């Protein structure tokens, strides 16, 4: 069980300090795939860096801690301070761009024998690697090639091989398939799922693609403006989200076969230099009230295993109802001036808001 205990990660720049992750507090169970989703700038990559232990100036874990749930060789519990020694042994990292992570002037096999755990017995290690990569669909000679001689998909498989070779307990993957074509992406994702089932470890997967999360992950964490706004099983996140941001995120994706009109999420996340008082999503939220604008909601468990940081989490399912009744695109497209207005009225946001405040008041 990985425990993130009020993690605050700060960047120090010329302009001052900014918290790229501002108080994330949750527990990640073992043996599953966790997805972290959110817009760019929400802090997901920074959180990954912190979990990996890759903090060095200007990034700093300024408050809180990360507990990994296992002990190191000397019997001491592993925390953010000594996790670096476990890199590639018990925790590893798959980066986004394989081309910038593989040394272009050496053969790939050198990268496998490059760290202390393996450099002692190079020949033996390489034999094991050759056998291992065949499981990943690569020919054993692949490690004798230079990076540029392999295709993008093959290179990314090499990165996966490097990250999983020593069977680590935690694998962090930061958008590993974003730069790949969709057919190759599917292969790599299926590969990751297979490996996880076999090794029974934890994979933390960052992506902005909600479809990928739906396919790959067991549980998901949605981040917005350096905060965790929802944390639940993937099935629940898509079926019945309990945070308006999650709902609008999942609803802004067209799918083939679905003819309903959809609306993108207008506006942008608040500047982290001056985060707003109260809920950070309030400026863009259709359910926002004065309460939201003054009191920041905490990540609370609204249903078993389902956490949401919203004062009106219970009303979100109703919002989803009304969004589901959006008109068909072909009906609104003819009159574009009404395209947005119609969708908006179809959302009947005023009504939803009324309903929401009515529901919450007696509860308090």
């Amino acid at each position, binding site marked *: 069980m990985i425990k993130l205990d009020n993690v605050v990660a700060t960047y120090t720049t010329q302009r001052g300090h900014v918290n790229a992750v501002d108080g994330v507090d949750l527990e990640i169970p073992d043996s599953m795939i966790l997805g972290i989703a959110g817009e760019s700038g929400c802090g997901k990559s920074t959180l990954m860096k912190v979990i990996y232990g890759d903090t060095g100036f200007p990034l700093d874990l300024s408050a809180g801690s990360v507990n990994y749930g296992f002990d190191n060789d000397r019997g001491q519990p592993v925390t953010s301070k000594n996790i670096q020694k476990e890199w590639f042994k018990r925790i590893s990292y798959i980066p986004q761009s394989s081309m910038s992570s593989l040394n272009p002037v050496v053969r790939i096999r050198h990268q496998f024998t490059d760290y202390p755990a393996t450099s002692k017995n190079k020949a033996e290690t390489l034999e094991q690697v050759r056998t291992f990569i065949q499981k990943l669909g690569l020919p054993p000679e692949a490690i004798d090639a230079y990076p540029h001689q392999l295709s993008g998909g093959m290179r990314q498989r090499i990165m996966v091989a490097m990250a999983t070779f020593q069977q680590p307990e935690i694998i962090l993957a930061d958008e590993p398939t974003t730069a790949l074509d969709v057919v190759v992406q599917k292969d790599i994702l299926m590969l990751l799922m297979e490996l996880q089932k076999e090794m029974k470890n934890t994979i933390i997967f960052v992506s902005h693609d909600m479809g*990928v999360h739906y396919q790959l992950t067991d549980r998901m964490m949605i981040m917005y403006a350096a905060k965790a706004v929802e944390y639940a099983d993937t099935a629940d996140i898509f079926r019945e989200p309990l945070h308006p941001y999650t709902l609008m995120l999942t609803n802004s994706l067209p799918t083939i076969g679905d003819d309903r009109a*959809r609306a993108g999420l207008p506006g942008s996340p608040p500047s982290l230099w001056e985060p707003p008082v109260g809920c950070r999503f309030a400026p863009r939220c259709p359910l926002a009230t004065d309460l939201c604008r003054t009191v920041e909601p905490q990540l609370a468990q609204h249903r078993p295993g389902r956490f949401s940081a919203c004062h009106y989490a219970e009303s979100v399912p109703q919002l989803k109802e009304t969004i589901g009744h959006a008109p068909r695109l072909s009906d609104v497209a003819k009159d*574009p001036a009404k395209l947005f207005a119609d969708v908006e009225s179809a959302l009947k946001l005023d009504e939803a808001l009324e309903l929401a405040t009515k529901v919450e008041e007696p509860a308090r």
Partner: protein
Amino acid sequence: MRTILKTEGLNKDYQLGGFPRNVTIKALDNINITVESDEPVIISVVGESGSGKTTLAKVILRLVQPSSGAVTVADHLVAGKRARPDKTEFLRTVQPIFQNPFEAFSRYRTVDAYLYETATRVAQLGRDRAIAAMEEALSVVGLEYKDVRGKYPNQFSGGELQRASVARALIPHPSLIIADEPVSMIDASRRLIIINLFLALKQEYKTSLVYITHDLATAYYISDYTVVMNHGTVVEFGEAKQVLQNPRHEYTRLLLDSIPSLDHKWTEEIAIDASRN
């Protein structure tokens, strides 16, 4: 019926490597697409990287010369051996929207400088009418001139910059806009703003759009016609809803299968296949 877009036997070969071991890469291999309509249409060109869709865009935009074949846009011959369109006439017929909004503007120039230049040189308006045209185009995309004026590209977000890019392309009221992956650099949650905008433009400005993308879902959402490309050839072409829901070609089916959909899980597919065997 007007010819919105027609390519005839379009080929583009690239020579790689030097003498004697040079290799010919066929970036475009005998592309024949005809779209005729009286109403404006949105044509999506989908495919993976290396499929040739960007090369096709560049040929239509006259940024690259085809090795053979011809392209007609709005009844004008724009590419091919005998094509010598008048420069200003061409710029008023075809306009681009590029993938990376931050690359599309020079760091050293203000964003409105490009809009003003388009208004005065391509649309050939005098100063006052040019500013009016800019204001109108910007308001269509949801931006105000006073917010855009005098600002440099690094003062905008990706989405805003891309909308400014769209506004610029609209100023000369072109018949066809070529958008090469216009939303791939924008956050998934905000893409639909621009996609919906394209739909609105089709009606408001009577502008047809060639929408190049690898994202089949948004292609399905707005297109009338879809061209599926693979390794430089057109593997399937037809009405968008047909092609993307009832694909005939194996490659289209493969593409559709590989999209991480929100309907069914891949793991279920495997289970079904396993239980069948």
